[in-house]
């Protein structure tokens, strides 16, 4: 009796051992946990495993808020994933920490790299490719048609220049005594993303090729002066900032008439304030020298410590193929990174998504600099300082550049 059991156990163990050896395991981490995503990914993975029976793909879904800490501790403990999804802004930092595997020699394994167009540059750092973008999330200018009408403006003619933007904002700002009831435009201080839009549309830039901060150029100073004047001189945005109202964005709650929103904000508006959602219209951010708007990308990176390189590359190739990208970005409500994917009817039929897709033409993204999070925080603080009037724009930008230079 007992010997039977022992033999059985040994056989089972042997089988497991054999199957473990003959199967390659690839561990993939996805960022985000909503059901639509997990269902979609499970389907994709099953397809892949059918076609590649020798590869076992294990998937973990990690909420965005957990990502950084989990990635850091897992790699520290030597048990990191083979492929993981993250935001593009994190690439430089990970490379400097020796976590990522360069993907230059796998480019042939990936489906039609030219299909990504310009966007693939978001994944390049110091000349090498480390990140394959999957979906993007961008900002467009949003405005309330009802508030436009109330201010005597035509909702079908959104502002397209900086001067118009200012004029409109002044008209849209409503006061009650000395309290700003409605802000002309939501500038989202202290985030540097909205100011970045003005910087870029004025032809300025954040960093140059040698990772030197260059946003204190004359264009940058001009952009910050325009930005600051909106607050201090023309008073279209409160100096102390505009908080969310009961968790609704100011433009949805009606405390701001214009804002730079993402597709996610629109989706939330649709869900929590459907009647207001109808009244929000979208357009491109006004241009000075060129049209520009901020996009952030989510995509895949490969760990340098991956054990089954070939299998991992196969999985990566599959996950970044046109069909996968189409599915994943649709399910996440983002914009697909591939040009060919954009033609999928599901994207075309949604006017809002179509507009965001068009906006990709003018996209700029977070600079691929290793100390980006620190630099970003420093820049935000100095923008805040000018907005509150404790420094002039030129002073603030020069000081920010000085401090950021020290980070190198």
């Amino acid at each position, binding site marked *: 009796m007992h010997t039977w059991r022992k033999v059985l156990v040994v056989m089972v163990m042997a089988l497991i051992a054999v199957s473990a050896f003959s199967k390659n395991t690839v561990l993939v981490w996805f960022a985000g*946990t909503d059901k639509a995503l997990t269902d979609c990914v499970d389907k994709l993975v099953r397809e892949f495993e059918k076609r590649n029976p020798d590869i076992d793909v294990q998937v973990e879904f990690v909420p965005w808020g957990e990502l950084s800490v989990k990635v850091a*501790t897992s790699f520290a403990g030597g048990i990191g994933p083979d492929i993981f999804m993250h935001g593009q802004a994190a690439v430089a930092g990970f490379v400097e920490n020796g976590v990522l595997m360069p993907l230059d020699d796998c480019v042939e394994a990936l489906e039609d790299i030219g299909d990504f167009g310009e966007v693939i540059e978001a994944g390049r750092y110091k000349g090498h490719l480390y990140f394959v973008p999957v979906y993007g*999330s961008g900002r467009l200018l949003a405005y309330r048609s009802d508030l436009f009408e109330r201010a005597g403006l035509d909702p079908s003619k959104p502002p397209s220049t900086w001067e118009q933007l200012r004029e409109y904002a002044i008209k849209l700002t409503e006061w009650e005594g000395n309290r700003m009831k409605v802000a002309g435009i939501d500038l989202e201080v202290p985030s540097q993303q909205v100011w970045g839009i003005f910087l870029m549309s004025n032809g300025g830039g954040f960093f140059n090729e040698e990772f030197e901060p260059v946003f204190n150029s004359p264009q940058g100073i001009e952009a910050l002066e325009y930005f600051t004047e909106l607050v201090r001189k023309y008073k279209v945005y409160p100096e102390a900032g505009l908080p969310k109202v009961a*968790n609704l964005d100011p433009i949805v*709650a009606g405390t701001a008439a214009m804002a730079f929103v993402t597709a996610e904000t629109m989706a939330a508006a649709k869900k929590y304030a459907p009647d207001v959602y109808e009244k929000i219209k979208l357009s491109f951010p006004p241009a000075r020298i060129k049209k520009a708007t901020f996009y952030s990308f989510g995509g895949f990176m490969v760990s340098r410590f991956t054990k089954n390189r070939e299998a991992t590359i196969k999985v990566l190739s599959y996950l970044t193929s046109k069909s996968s990208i189409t599915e994943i970005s649709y399910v996440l409500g983002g914009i697909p990174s591939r040009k060919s994917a954009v033609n999928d009817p599901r994207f075309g039929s949604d006017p809002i998504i179509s507009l965001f897709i068009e906006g990709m033409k003018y996209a700029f993204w977070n600079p691929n600099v290793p100390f980006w999070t620190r630099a970003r925080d420093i820049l935000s603080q100095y923008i805040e300082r000018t907005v509150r009037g404790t420094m002039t724009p030129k002073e603030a930008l020069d000081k920010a550049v000085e401090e950021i230079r020290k980070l190198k």
Partner: protein
Amino acid sequence: MKRKSSSLVLIPIAIITTILMGFPFFWMLLSSFKSNSELFSWPPKILPSSITFEHYVDAISTFRFGRYFFNSVIVAVLSMLINVFFCSLAGYAFACLEFPYKKLFFVLILATMIIPVQITLIPTFLLVKNLPLCGGNDIFGRGGTGLLNTHIGLAVPHIMTAFGVFMMRQFYSQFPNGLLEAARIDGAREFAIFFEIFLPLSKPGLSALAIFTFTETWNDFLWPLVITRTDKMRTIQLGLEIFKGRFVNDWGPLMAATVISSIPIIVVFILFQKQFMSMSLTSGMK
């Protein structure tokens, strides 16, 4: 007479206090029954115009909610039992017994409280991973994953805590000296003195520690985040994270899940707070 008038003054104070303390929780509770378009309506409505259970259904059917709940319960109860038992032993010893280097031992234990927890996160993680002879590790702690992704591993920061020892020590030092002397004169053995005399009398302190340990363990987010590797071992706090998106949260199910996740702590609290009122400590000198 005096009692009546003091009660009258106290009642409005009690009511105001209750409202101030409880308002956020009750808002959350009521919100969990509101439909999406009502959740953040302006002006805010306190009561939902129509009660919906959709968020609760959503919350429970998302992922392995039941499993996360179960994990949290196991770890919290485990931590509570271990912590209360061992901290009361040590607290008593520090408060009532004499032994060499007593101060040194105490200071060393207290010293573990002063370092912010964020910084010991990674070293503790590595320690737990490389613990010898656990989870596939050899005698040097290599090869496997130690106590990672286990219930015991989840309990690690919450047992034998300095806070616990400190608190029990303070409670035991409130006891009159005479109690111990009398028991010794009676010829009782040291172990018996503690287990049969002091322990039963320290119910308020034990209850307080039980509530605290349970609460701390239940609400812990950072450690479970770092130590769980698979979905099966997640705790309820990590589960709540699932409803938080990259830019926007899924508020309906988040509120519902938060309410559900608060229930066990409330239950533990109600169970143990009875202990506070049931004690009328006699000096036991009789």
